[in-house]
């Protein structure tokens, strides 16, 4: 078998991810085999020949070998799992917005209700410091179906969106109607954080929350200091609290 240039890498070490290492090794093996079989010098193989000798079917084979081990991929876009559930981990209700669902982050700072019935149920990073805290009714928005429901029925006034998508597209048609946002991911520089600032919607990003269910009345400490780029760089924690309020 011929060697590839990368086979003589003096400093290279495998990637940290086992999956990534497996795929890279598999593709490297594929290239080695095709190069050897071609009997061409590398200069003739690298583009003109390998463009045709290394095919989509070869890469389908790489995927198949991984799946044959029983491995199933984690998914990030709902469409990926819906179209090919056989190659992805089960959805486990991760895209649903059922009344019984609650984020359950292990690092959420939670507590019992105080005398006023206010119970800590997590914290996040404040996008913009505002004069007052935001108070409203929690509404999970985690699927296209939920977005369509709100498009058709309207977002109830005073709703706080509880989201795990830090992007700016899933909620695009309805975002402006929310009185507040809690996003269980991203940073204040994520697209959702940028949009919250543009719309002027109180927003906590990178939130770690527990015990919040759809319909709960919640308070976001949007009067807390905003997170900053310097704090991200130095690792300084600047958190704003989230409470569940008595109904």
């Amino acid at each position, binding site marked *: 078998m011929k060697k590839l*240039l990368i086979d003589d890498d003096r400093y290279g070490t495998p990637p940290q991810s086992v999956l*990534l290492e497996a795929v890279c090794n598999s593709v490297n093996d594929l290239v080695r085999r095709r190069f050897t079989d071609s009997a061409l010098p590398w200069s003739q193989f690298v583009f003109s020949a390998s463009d045709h000798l290394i095919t989509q079917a070869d890469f389908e084979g790489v995927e198949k070998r991984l799946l044959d081990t029983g491995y199933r991929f984690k998914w990030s876009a709902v469409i990926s799992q819906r179209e090919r559930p056989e190659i992805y981990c089960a959805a486990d209700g991760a895209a649903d917005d059922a009344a019984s669902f609650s984020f359950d982050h292990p690092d959420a700072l939670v507590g019992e209700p105080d005398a006023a019935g206010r119970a800590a149920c997590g914290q996040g990073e404040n996008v913009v410091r505002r004069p007052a805290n935001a108070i409203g009714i929690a509404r999970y928005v985690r699927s296209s179906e939920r977005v369509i429901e709100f498009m058709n029925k309207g977002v109830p006034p005073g709703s706080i969106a509880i989201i795990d998508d830090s992007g700016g597209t899933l909620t*695009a048609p309805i975002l402006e109607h929310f009185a507040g946002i809690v996003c269980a991911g991203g940073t204040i520089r994520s697209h959702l954080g940028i949009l919250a600032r543009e719309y002027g919607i109180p927003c906590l990003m990178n939130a770690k929350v527990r015990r919040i269910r759809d319909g709960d009345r919640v308070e976001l400490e949007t009067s807390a200091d905003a997170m900053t*780029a310097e704090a991200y760089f130095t690792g300084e924690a600047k958190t704003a609290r989230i409470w569940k309020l008595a109904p």
Partner: protein
Amino acid sequence: MSRPEISYSQLLETNNLIQNCGDETYWLCLTRTVQGSKLFPVSAYILLSYLNAFYRYPTLLRKIEASMPAETIADRARTMGMKIQNSAIGWALPNFYLLGREMLITFGMLRPQDALEDVVYVMDFWKRYLLSWHRNDGHLNNREYGQRAQILPDRRLEIFHRDLYLCEPGDALHEAAHSFLATASQYGFLISCESRISLTNSGPYRLDDRHEMIVRDFMDLGECALPWLDGVAADVPYNYLTVPMSVRDCHFSIVDDWGSFESKPEFTSDKLAGIGLYTSDALSEGFIPVGMASREELTATFQLLNEKMKEATRKLWLRIAGWTRDQMLDAGALTYYNIIKDLAHVAGVFAVEDWLTIDPRAERFRPLFNDELSDQLLGSLVVGHDLPGHRQSPYTMMQHSDRPVRTYTPLPYSVLAGDEYVASCGEPQSGTSHLVPKIDRYRTTQGVLTIDDYNRRARAFTPELCQDKYRFLCETWVKYHHRTPLAQDLYRLEQLKSRTLQGKGAGPR
């Protein structure tokens, strides 16, 4: 195959540009964003776009330059708000290409010296373009300038400044402008498939001790080069909108090569103190005021655009919600890959085959791009730096991370000592797309045109301010010649459509 046509100085310069790109990419990706989307398979489409860029950019940039040099297009970029600014050219052009190259090196499909002349050419195009575009601030890019972009000349800034309508929180214009900016930003993220590449900002420019101005561009808004906007954006009347915006008691401390800004204190709408609105494109005589005849007209224009973009957002979201994963992958990959397509529009050589299809050499990798592998590979490429190719001598310390790694593999100087190399990856191959084909309808400032007509008009058009008579009348020249008839002509030409400065010329400051 060894051809010593590349000099030592070319390699030195190319490697310097590559290293600059690598250092900046790490910083941008580490500090400026954390992205996730449940709608789009973002990492997967990004990786596909990088490969398409690697295989096609060299040839397509040469095709563009056969019609118009990079420096000439960049000079024109200062007269309009097309997608030939940041992040398109300032960051994406070289980095999409280099990230594709790094992927192929990781896979063992490429050696550092393969496609060597392509790499030298792409980086040289980028350097020439940026130096020309940034000629007023004298830097290669915003990174070199300490995260700042002062692109525009005095004569244009004076118009943007003097023609602003002042506004205060609570007044109708302020409210309409605020709503428009939010809606246009939201629409921008959606049309560009969960990326910020339809939005950019440049500046800041000092107005007085309490005010700064930033120039915001919203791009690819109408029925033009993105096929998924055919139909849904038929009522959006402009493809490019430029919004000069003055803010009070707020300093823009970062305007980066992604066109994103950061300010101290955080910019919020209550700091908005003045606003203007313009459109432009490859066929316009510079910036054309939109609704700027009166305060009331501007308020109404913002309100109208706001409604049209909200409606387009609703229609487009429903269209996207019905897409397959392959369609999402293609739309996202093409949005990223064709981020530099406006170079072809300005040069009058845009072709659907070039910019709206995936080359089969990139397409073949599609089965690898499941969500998990894509997230991990993308993370490793830009921030993790744990792929074998990233590793360097243990004595080295990368800028920002201090780790013995680098983002991009330099070109090896050993080719000058006789090591063989392959010059180019070759011509683009006939591509494919899972999307509905582009309708031959392109909204421009000269009306809705076919692509042949758009190209023909672009090739025949040179904005008056970019004619040879004016092109090299730079800021240094103006400083010492502002009383000359030629300087008066230059300023009056720029002022033709100004509400407040028309005919005033280059008066003393």
